[in-house]
């Protein structure tokens, strides 16, 4: 199966390791991975901050770049939700843009959706001998409704001890530009999330979104908690032979 990887601008720029992990995981599962080099950003930051014009321009670019693929896989629940949930609201019904969105949006999958629903695998052959807790990010949980797909994948990872996160469904406080526009509330929310993570005694906090992990991880790091954050893809890509860093 030939799939296009939508890396997302945040992962491309700041977390290339997540992209490499997706490539290695999908190849291990028999997929041919294509990276359309013209891709840039889904436009979420602009649209959600009130810059619709710029956001729509980026959305149009996205639909052009990814037109014609059977499946587009994104290692971000938030960016996948942007395309699937918000793109249809940005276009005029009946317009050319609406047709372009209708053609592309349903083919965009968040990684765990693609693995469980399209490839129909829950055991990806991963090995990761660590105590891990999982934070279901808001757009994965309430936008895409990923449900227990990530947990099912993690439970099948050999050696992994998955511990439930108290208050898991509560937002971590990242919220895109919310983190800098309302830093006090964002940090207060992050502090409570950090408390939940520490209560689990986990070594690793895992999620399907690096932007939320950048916020929680930034707080875990600042407080010298010794807990590290990892994207789901990196844990799933890890094997006995090729260990995750």
């Amino acid at each position, binding site marked *: 199966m030939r799939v296009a990887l939508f890396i997302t601008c945040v992962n491309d720029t700041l977390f290339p390791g997540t992209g490499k992990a997706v490539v290695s995981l999908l190849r291990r599962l028999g997929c041919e991975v294509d990276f359309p080099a013209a891709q840039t950003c889904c436009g979420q930051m602009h649209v959600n901050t009130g810059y619709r014009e710029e956001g729509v321009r980026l959305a149009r670019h996205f639909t052009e770049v990814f037109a014609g693929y059977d499946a587009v896989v994104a290692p971000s629940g938030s960016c996948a939700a942007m395309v699937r949930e918000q793109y249809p609201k940005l276009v005029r019904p009946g317009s050319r843009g609406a047709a372009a969105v209708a053609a592309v949006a349903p083919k965009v999958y968040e990684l765990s959706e693609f693995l469980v629903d399209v490839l129909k695998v829950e055991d990806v052959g991963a090995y990761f001998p660590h105590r891990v807790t999982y934070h279901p990010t808001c757009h994965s949980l309430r936008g895409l409704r990923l449900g227990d797909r990530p947990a099912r994948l993690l439970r099948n990872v050999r050696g992994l001890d998955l511990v439930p996160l108290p208050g898991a469904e509560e937002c971590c*406080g990242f919220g895109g530009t919310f983190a800098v526009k309302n830093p006090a509330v964002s940090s207060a929310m992050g502090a409570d999330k950090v408390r939940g993570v520490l209560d689990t005694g986990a070594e690793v906090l895992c999620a399907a979104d690096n932007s939320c992990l950048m916020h929680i991880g*930034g707080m875990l790091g600042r407080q010298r908690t010794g807990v590290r954050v990892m994207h789901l893809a990196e844990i799933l890509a890890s094997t006995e032979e090729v260990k995750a860093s």
Partner: protein
Amino acid sequence: MSATFIGMPGNFPKNSAQAVQNSQLRYNLRKATHTIRGKRASVVGELPDWQELRAAGKAIKDETLRHLDRYLLQLEEAVTAAGGHVHWARDAAEANRIVAGLVKATGEREVVKVKSMATQEIGLNEALAAEGITAYETDLAELIVQLGDDFPSHILVPAIHRNRAEIREIFLDRMEDAPPGLTDEPAALAEAARVHLRERFLRSRVAVSGANFMIAETGTLVVLESEGNGRMCLTLPETLISVVGIEKVLPTWRDLEVFLQLLPRSSTGERMNPYTSTWTGSAEGQDFHLVLLDNGRTDVLADEVGRQALRCIRCSACLNVCPVYERAGGHAYGSVYPGPIGAILTPQLRGMGSELDASLPYASSLCGACYEVCPVAIDIPEVLVDLRAKAPHGAAERAGMRVAGWVLNDQARLAAAQRAATRLRGLVPRRLPGPLSAWTDTRDLPDIPEESFRDWWEREG
């Protein structure tokens, strides 16, 4: 006399930055919101047809709003036929003028009040005070707020920011007939308020209320409450004046079936509220006046995305699940409508001319918890994002976002920016200057990688 929010200075980030440092407030709000949240989840969870009820509630409200003119005229006709008097108020000033005039015409100088958001919204108590009329709040929580010269901080539980020790102090300081040995036991506090209010109920000849629903076909008004104090006000005084937002109308008596299930379960987390009062015109021999309030609602109705906010039945479920409200508290929103619904309602009703109102659409992480619990399926995140597009933006932010949009719209420009960042990676300080310190004050920055994913792909992919 409770204070008014109108013209409050500041903005949400500043107000909430103070609130998050208040340990008492954080503790009170966490405890209260989590308790109501849990109760709501359990009584909603026991209904297998909750999603159908929710869809029905949304559909009834949408249909009503689509033909609002027709239903309001029908309501007016029915109320008038039942001996009531209907007044139309374009804005707060007009509504206040009408109510003050009606009270004065009775010759009375005081009124008892049923808990009402509409009268809070228009600042009725203050307007009446200016005319020499004293308004007494009779809802226990509103009484606490009024006695403490305080602001309400929650739609359903206006004194949610107070704990029982604080309430005891307010009663002892401000309630002239509070028993000297008053403890902070909830039963003792409630009894003190009961004795205090009983005297008011028996004395007052004029009452002012709002309404949860108005039935167009019969002209019936409906109030749901827990304490029974509302019913005292609605039934004892000789004159009853109800100030109700025009969006509160429902077409038929039968439509109530849906809302009498949706509201208590979403609001107090009860299967049924203790008191449901209904009255039709002057049928019970009272002199009844209905003041239909616009105050910005028709402007909201004209907005294709924003109009869904008019479906709101003021249940507060969105406040109780909101992680931002839980930490910022209600006062930070500078409006009688705090929380997620306030963040979309206030800027629409008042406009975004003030710094505070312009900051409200940003008072959300867009986590979507509010939309999920809303009994009439108001897509609050969608309205927030729409309002952000209409909000005024600062020049520096606008310039930055424009540059970011330009860089992100082209792969070569993005790659060049990434390589520039890589070259500078050793120079990034741990604490960033200026507005970017908002990130690094509490969080470490991620390391900038040696190369971007796209450069790696080109080399090795």
